[in-house]
């Protein structure tokens, strides 16, 4: 051991002072994640606001961590939440259990369940980490109507069979009537951290969206 070793050590410390910071400034300034990174779930809607989820529980079945709870219910003529007969009366995801594997998304037959790139799923309260259906449902975008309501996009059957075509017709009709069809807001540019919670909502509505 040389007498100069302590100096060498301090030299490293001193030198580092002139290099860039490698740690994240979280939570003050969260770094953006890769745009296709997926974590928090989202239950999507049809363009008229009806829920895509039919409460089939296939996501719950597929989940290796048993994180999802679904209870089906009957749509009635007076209270319709989704096209068809069945809807999710209750839907919960337990983020204490979820491992983010995405099996549920793969299992979903209606493309109702997708994941968005929000990842801030930590809390000091276990109860709050069980997300309810209201928290998981996609916010109503312009043009959407809060269910229950009747299907606005043709009959149930047409809607099932030719959903995308109907949507195009519907949008064309609205454009022809002079309506502005809302476009989702653009993604924030890569590498720009937004940091504020208001932006976080924006981010979460703007990515991983599957509104059609």
């Amino acid at each position, binding site marked *: 051991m040389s007498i100069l070793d302590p100096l060498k050590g301090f030299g490293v410390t001193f030198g580092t002072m002139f290099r860039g910071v490698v740690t994240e400034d979280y939570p003050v300034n969260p770094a953006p994640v890769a745009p296709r990174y997926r974590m928090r779930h989202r239950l999507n809607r049809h363009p008229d606001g009806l829920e895509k989820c039919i409460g089939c*529980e296939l996501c*719950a079945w597929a989940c290796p961590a048993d994180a999802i709870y679904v209870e089906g219910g009957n749509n009635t*003529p007076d209270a319709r939440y989704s096209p068809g007969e069945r809807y999710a009366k209750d839907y919960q995801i337990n983020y204490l259990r979820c491992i983010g594997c995405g099996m549920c998304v793969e299992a979903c037959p209606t493309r109702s369940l997708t994941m968005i790139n929000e990842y801030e799923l930590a809390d000091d309260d276990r109860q709050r980490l069980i997300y309810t259906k209201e928290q998981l449902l996609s916010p109503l975008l312009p043009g959407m109507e809060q269910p229950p309501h009747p299907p606005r996009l043709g009959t149930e059957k047409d809607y099932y069979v030719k959903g995308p075509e109907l949507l195009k017709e519907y949008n064309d009709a609205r454009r022809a009537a002079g309506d502005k069809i809302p476009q989702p807001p653009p993604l924030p540019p890569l590498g720009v951290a937004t940091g504020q919670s208001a932006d976080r909502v924006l981010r979460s509505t703007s990515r991983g969206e599957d509104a059609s």
Partner: protein
Amino acid sequence: MTATLPATETPAILGPAWDADAPAPDGYVKFVIDGQDVVAPKGEMVIRTCERMGIEITRFCDHPLLEPIAACRQCLVEMEMGGRMMPKPQPACAVAVADGLVVHTQRTSAVAARAQWANVEFILTNHPLDCPMCDKGGECPLQNQDLAHGPGESRFKEAKRTFVKPIAISTEILLDRDRCILCYRCTRFSEEIAGDPFIDMLGRGVRQQVGTGPEVPFQSYFSGNTIQICPVGALTSTAYRFRSRAFDLKSAPTICELCSAGCELRTDHRSGKILRRYAGENGDVNEEWNCDKGRFAFRYVTGDDRLRTPLVRGTDGSLAPASWTDAMTAAAAGLARAKAAGGVGVLAGGRLTVTDAYAYGKFARVALGTNDVDFRARAHSAEELDFLARRVVGVSPKTGGVTYRGLEAAKHVLLVALEPEEECPIVFLRLRKAARRHGTQITAVAPYASYGLHKMGGVLIPAAPGAENAAVAALAGADDPAGLRTDGAVILVGERAAEVPGLLTAVGELADATGARLAWVPRRAGERGALDAGATPTLLPGGRAVTDAAARAQVENAWGTAIPETPGRDTAGILAAAAAGELGGLLIGGVELDDLPDPAAARRAVENAGFVVSLELRRSEVTDLADVVFPVAAAPEKAGAYLDWEGRVRPFNTALKWAGGLDDGRVLDTLGVEMDVDLYTQTPKSATEDLARLGAYEIPRTRTASYPPTTATPAAADGALTLASWRLLLDGSRAEDGEPHLAGTRRPESVRLSPATAERLGLADGTLVTLTGTAGSVTLPLVVTDMVDGVVWAPGRVAGTSLAAQTGARAGDGVTVAAAPPDAVAAVDPDVVASEAEGRLGSLVTGMGGSK
């Protein structure tokens, strides 16, 4: 090579000693499956033999308890007969085994494998892609067999045929016709097993579909079984639709608590709530069937009116929630005071498990020092107790009692005061099977031939209420009109026989005279167990008579207490004494006052009793009048055992493990401790052990009193008709609460008169009539029925309320019947027209409108 068959009901004739070259024994044939020599009983279908050999053959329509039909063509195998291959694959479910047959299943024949594979694909051509929303998804034979043996993917790209879906074939059963694979299981069940052929195949070809007749719903007490046997999700129940998935459910085997049939059931629950009940399998009891009441009436368990905490009547005179400790102290002090002030009567109720009933009987004797304990909350008599002591208590399949299988084997069965379809549905199914398969002759002594009797092809011996004695006595004649002198003949007598003085004696004498075997069939699940457990005024546990010093000493030794040597009061006696102020108090188990023969008198008695302790599941008339109320566990929340009508022990475990209720035995045990006595009934296990400590006892079958059969029909007052009445299976009893879809399948309630009587009274079929007793009247439509003159029949409950409570009349009483006033409307139970069912289904179905 010789196959060794797994053990089955077939005698073990194959084994190491069996010689492959020897011919098959009598009644058996020898043939070859996949190169193995096998022996099978004549008449067996090839698919059954394969099953026993462990060869799985895909199938949809085949069901071991239904007749073969070969509708789905899924079980195709290749067959050779006399060395020649049959030109096409044959359905294994419909070809009987034969000497010299050679079978090639999919294991050895590529043709068979290909045929099965192709048939799945064919069946799927028109099957909708409904799995995500279909209730059967996850437990569906079509899904499973397609994944295991089928293509898994369809080449059929054209549009599938669709139907409006679902249609409600009754308020409880929904039919999705596009899912149906036309296997005929449901229609065969309804025709062959239940005898209610209200659904059938309609149309042909690709439009062929299951359906009901116009305006005739699938109104069968057994309709729920079709859901269970449908191999796809074409039949679903309104109650369970979309509520859960197979993988969510925790299943617990259980025994039905709703009648004395003792059905094996499976309770499926999720998050502490029962979501459905399925029939379990038990060849000795219910085979694979059960009734709709047992299947759908379980919502009462989680009803809003369940009691959750003890209640104590405070100084202000109102019931208030209290801690268990306070309630126990109050109850013990009150009972001790009541005991000193004339004694306490115990009404145990007929729905208890054996050990709970034992706790009531023991509590009465040990803590209250009385024999005033009775489980009978219905018409009863001293003669009945004598009959039960002589001929029923202690009898079980083990002691050679009548069994379900015995019914099936009997050549002749006589029914007295028993309507099996309404009062013990599985007895009905067995009897119908016996009549259909083995030609059993069924004879019933009743005022008219019910629908159930028709379905059993039975013969009616018409008898007005009160005149049954003479009719029964006449059957003892040498000409033997009911065939009771034949080998294995059985007499089944219902609990209603107690309504007619002398009838049980006459039935007993008939059995003695003819040598026929005799069994008693009560309605409630707990009655047989309570009888054997000693919750009666004359019998201690195990049929030991209170008056028999030696028997009493045996119990006194085990219990370490003296037992009064005089028989106690029965239910009517206890209530009369309470009303007269002779008793200081009452301890009441699950008793509905309306079920008692005189509800008004019972109400007065409970009101008059100085101190009333009630052990109940839910708020009731009794709990409203009680001074201390203890909540007890419902059947799915506790363990225990029932004795079914055969006397067979039907043990069950807790289904809802976390519900946390205390059973009656536990509550009484704690109450005993509070009163300084030990019951040892804190768990069913310890109660059973305590019961076993009594030791062995031979029940002397001697007559203790004589009840000469009365032959005189009670003379009805001038112009009055004699009332005949019994309870229907589904009649708005409290167990059915909370299940409106089930209520919709109730049979229409009506009053019945013979054509002559109706004519005499100037009443026409279908018109509204008013039946009036001493205390009131009910209005129902009249159905003119071929029946005894001078008698009127009405259901035991009308619009969900006891007939006796509404009219003051019970079976055998004189009542008057007259045309209803023009503005009268038929009594309708508000529960029946189910708003949800109507709202959802009303637009799809015409002519449903409930049962009334």
